[in-house]
């Protein structure tokens, strides 16, 4: 009798907890910002707290990086043997070869988890993503258009998105091979193809997942996942970081002759 009562109590509290959880989830879904058309509005300034850009794979600390658990599902990027050799060379020479060290465009998906904020400007027809670092702007088209039939090889690829419920699913193709995936020399070819899933966890947190495919470099598609936090500091804003100009910006503007 006593046990039954206890079980009943347990069951009741479990149901209550479940209801609370469901209620909480529903509430979170209600509370996310939305555009007038009802789609989730990702507009805002976002940044990862992860150490993903130092190395997507799990890594110990090193002179130029904090340690990190990695963001690769299964921990290991499935390189083809020849590509793995290239990756190792890239790692050894990362100080001079890493495009980000030169201030060059981070590319996709690196701009998502590079340790600087980026701002999303969202409208019904597109999302424009402006990273603080560099000068490139990525447009994700959500206007029911598809990849061009006669594409270029673009630095940022070509991004076409659609909504599956409250998740933005983006197909990114038509890349060049000039960007890296992180600062540890992980790389890709111009056959890179990415499928991204962007969704709110709550109003101030985004979950970003991507499936990365490149038959010239990897033996199979592989997945990454990071959390992005909204910057909520008072008056926070992007501060342009055109770092590639630092090598020559001392020459401008002209200055009066020293007295």
């Amino acid at each position, binding site marked *: 009798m006593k046990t039954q009562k206890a079980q009943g109590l347990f069951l009741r509290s479990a149901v209550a907890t479940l209801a609370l959880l469901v209620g909480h989830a529903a509430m979170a879904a209600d509370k996310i910002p939305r555009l007038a058309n009802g789609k989730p509005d990702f507009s805002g300034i976002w940044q990862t707290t992860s150490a993903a850009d130092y190395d997507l794979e799990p890594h110990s600390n090193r002179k130029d990086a904090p340690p990190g658990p990695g963001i690769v599902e299964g921990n290991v990027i499935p390189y083809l043997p020849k590509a793995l050799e290239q990756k190792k060379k890239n790692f050894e020479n990362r100080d001079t070869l890493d495009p980000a060290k030169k201030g060059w465009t981070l590319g996709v998906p690196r701009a998502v988890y590079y340790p600087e904020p980026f701002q999303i400007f969202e409208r019904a027809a597109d999302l*424009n993503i402006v990273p603080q670092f560099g000068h*490139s702007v990525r447009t994700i088209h959500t206007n029911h258009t598809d990849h061009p039939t006669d594409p270029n090889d673009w630095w940022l690829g070509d991004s076409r998105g659609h909504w599956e419920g409250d998740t933005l699913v983006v197909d990114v193709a038509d890349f060049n091979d000039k960007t890296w995936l992180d600062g540890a020399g992980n790389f890709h070819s111009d056959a890179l193809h990415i499928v991204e899933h962007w969704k709110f966890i709550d109003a101030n947190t985004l979950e970003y997942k991507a499936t990365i495919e490149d038959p010239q470099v990897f033996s199979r598609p592989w997945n990454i996942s990071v959390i992005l936090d909204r910057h909520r500091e008072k008056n926070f804003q992007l501060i342009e970081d055109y770092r590639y*100009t630092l090598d020559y910006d001392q020459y401008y503007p002209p200055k009066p002759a020293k007295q």
Partner: protein
Amino acid sequence: MKQRKRMFKLSTILFLSASIMAAYAADEVRTAPVQPPKLGGGIAQEKTVPVILSGAWSGKRLADGQPDISGHWSNTISNHSNFTDPQGRIPGEPVRAGTTQRPLGAREDRAPSRVSDPADGQVPFQAWALEKVKEFQVGFQNPTSPEYIEPLARCAPAGIPKSLYWHGYEIAQYPGYVVFFFSSGTRIIHLNGKPHLPENIKLWNGDSRGHWEGNTLVVDVANHNGKALFGRSGEFISENGHIAERYIFDSKGLRYNYVAEFTDPTVYTRPFTVTIPARKWTEKDKPNGWHFEVEPANTGNRELVLDRFERICTENNGGFGLGAASTGK
């Protein structure tokens, strides 16, 4: 109008004030002189600057109340080859062997200086600064020193005001923001009244705070690093400069004039006004390799939707003067 008062006699001011009041009273900007731009055309499409007065906005509005001026825009008169004689040549441009220079004709047959005040169309440089500009104009033709290379040629942001007469660009609007997507950098205009960045932070595009006054986007620019020259003619502002901009849109949404007062006590003898006319480009226009770098999107043969070329500079790998191209087709 405030910036321009000093160039008019008192009677002129009174007359203009009366006209402006009348325009306000009619609840519509006097748009009679604003003709629809011709479709297509080269870089130098027009020779004149239309009159667009600040006043009420009677056109379409966005849900947040901003006048709807979103879309593709480009300057109408010329590129950045020459700041004060926009349809003239790059100063000191040599004649290439075996070619002849096209005759320029009389100055009044070309578009006016982008300096609309003072009346002589020249930047009121202090003596040392004018010397530097002249030095640049000579050095630019055969750069023997890094400062004679126009920074845009190395993919540096075109900055202010040059971004407005480099390639065409997109203006996008969001609650709290007007954003300029240039092919050589992005300008985010904050509309929410937050304070400027701390003074010691200096930026290629400065730090912009704006608000709407009727048909006019009023923008205050601080934190400017002064590094982006105004053109191949070498005019400049310094990191001590301040720019007060007015983007005056006609209510039909076809055109706007950029009218900005540049102040810098370390470079100029007095504030001066820069005027840059711009026009909108829409689906009705043919794509244009300078002003309107778009192509039809893959819609599966449904309605026409235009894709903008990737907004990116080719990462410092272009030749002299050619670096800052977008990677379009």
